[in-house]
């Protein structure tokens, strides 16, 4: 997604001279294409994320369209109050780009895991949040949201190779993407862990369980109506996120189910326990928290009602 972001930003910047790229001294072997092509619109503010957001606010008020880049936790949590009092309060078009969704920084450890950025920023209704699941969706979403008058936060993945089957670069504000149809249950997921959910759905299909996969890629505007209309035809829904479900996807879907009076039973899978000092590769972390394809299959198979309904396992 990172290459897709930089390439798309370069394309946009070629025709929109308001665009600037700010970095908190990160983005080695990633941001160079922009820096080389638009040296006067590239600014390394140093390892100073609070100031980066403040500077972006001042630039946006002057008419610029600044994209402020750092590792997701540093871009979102460190300057949270600057985001709140800056672009959100002033309704200015600052773009904040957080890199490394979920456990992507695997061996770097907990300080680098983006487990709360989306949940924390969902508390700011004036901020559009975009969480693409793969490079195709990244390209579309960067384009679709480029000219929004208010601020946007992008939670992006480093991985350029992921392709989530069924997404085909779809992205629409206020709507979800149905990456796979199904009739027995609905998975609702966000971000690059969607690839595990799709793989799990394919395995379940072999056993006769048809699981739909719904990918949520933005909040504010929330895709509430669209999601509710889809979930209304299901009895079972499972949310899957490589993040804290508290305030994140799990909380969002639970709110939709409860406030719309939907009949579906909801199961929430995410990172809901306190840090225990361990780290590992992304797949290791996904396994630990039950987010990998095998764990997801096991979770579904363990649901007796579904098993009875499928009659196969």
């Amino acid at each position, binding site marked *: 997604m990172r290459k897709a972001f930089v390439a798309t930003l370069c394309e946009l910047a070629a025709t929109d001279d308001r665009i600037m790229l700010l970095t908190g001294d990160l983005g080695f072997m990633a941001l160079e294409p922009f820096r080389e092509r638009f040296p006067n619109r590239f600014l390394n503010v140093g390892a100073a994320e609070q100031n980066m957001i403040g*500077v972006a606010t001042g*630039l946006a*008020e002057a008419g610029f369209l600044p994209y402020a880049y750092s590792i997701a936790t540093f871009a979102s949590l460190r300057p949270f*109050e600057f985001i709140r*009092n800056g672009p959100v309060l*002033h309704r200015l078009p600052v773009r904040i780009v957080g890199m490394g969704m979920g456990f992507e920084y695997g061996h770097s450890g907990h300080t680098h895991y983006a487990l709360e950025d989306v949940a924390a920023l969902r508390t700011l209704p004036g901020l559009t949040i975009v969480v693409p699941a793969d490079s195709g969706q990244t390209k579309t979403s960067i384009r679709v949201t480029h000219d929004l008058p208010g601020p946007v936060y992008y939670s992006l993945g480093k991985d350029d190779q992921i392709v989530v089957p069924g997404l085909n670069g779809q992205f629409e504000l206020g709507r979800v993407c149905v990456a796979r149809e199904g009739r027995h249950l609905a998975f609702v997921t966000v971000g690059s862990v969607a690839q595990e959910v799709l793989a799990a759905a394919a395995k379940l299909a072999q056993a006769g369980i048809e699981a739909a996969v719904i990918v949520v890629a933005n909040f504010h505007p929330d895709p509430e109506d669209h999601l509710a209309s889809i979930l209304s035809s299901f009895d079972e829904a499972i949310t899957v996120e490589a993040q804290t479900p508290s305030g994140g996807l799990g909380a969002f879907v639970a709110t939709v189910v409860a406030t719309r009076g939907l009949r579906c039973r909801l199961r929430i899978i995410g990172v809901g326990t306190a840090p225990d000092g361990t780290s590992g590769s992304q797949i290791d972390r996904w396994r630990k928290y039950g987010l990998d394809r095998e764990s997801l299959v096991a979770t579904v198979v363990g649901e007796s009602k579904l098993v009875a309904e499928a009659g196969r396992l």
Partner: protein
Amino acid sequence: MTSNPFEFRKVIDPKAMRRIILQQSKRANVGHIGSCLCVVEILSALYSFALEGSGPDDPQRDRFVLSKGHAGLALYAALALRGWLSEYHLETFCGTDTCLGVHPDVAIPGVDFTTGSLGQGICVAVGSALGARLQGSKRRVFCLLSDAECNEGSVWEAAMLAAQHRLSNLHVIVDFNGQQALNLTRDVLDQSNLAERWRAFGWRSSEVDGHSVADLAEALRIDDGLRPNVTVARTIFGKGVSYMEQGIPVTQHHLPVQPINWHYLPMSEDEYRRAIDDLEYGR
């Protein structure tokens, strides 16, 4: 540029500003009076001489960031006397569903940025100054900090970036009143060498009498094209009201004598009368 900064414009009268501050804080029964009174001459110098632009909607106007947002009422007084804020709006200070809270909001005509959380305004000011330069605009950016605000690490993040990019179109004024929310600044985080600290960060720095409009106006003209500027303005907390300057809680006898009282306290009727007497008939 002219050698006499008073040549072209009418000075916003500090006494009139203080009158508004006392009247409105009494009417609304709120504090932060000492913080407002001590920046009166700074705001008078800014709005009488330094800030260029045809009005609050002029995109090429100079920008001002009241980074110490708790002096919002002093800013409203300056805006009212400059003619950008109506008396009607001024009377809504701390009212119901008003934009004129204690801390200023960008929704108010003439307020360029919302402030109130310390250490944020200067970062925005740096972005604003950088934007002006990138656009080839001559507009300047002024930013008023409190000395206690310099406790915030983000102030120094901003200071480093401004110096790195030689943002000489940026002028910071530090209200050096020596007071912070619980103690004297020197007893919390001593910053008695504040001007020196800014110099060490690559800024052009000077110290002036923060109650001399002429000295402030002169200092605010500086733009050497090389460095961002900071003026450390020595001020007296509660300036213009003698019992506030001395920290005497006239009617709250349980409190010790300390200037910080007038960071928090609203005025009683008696205190208000004494303050107005001081202002109108005092020094």
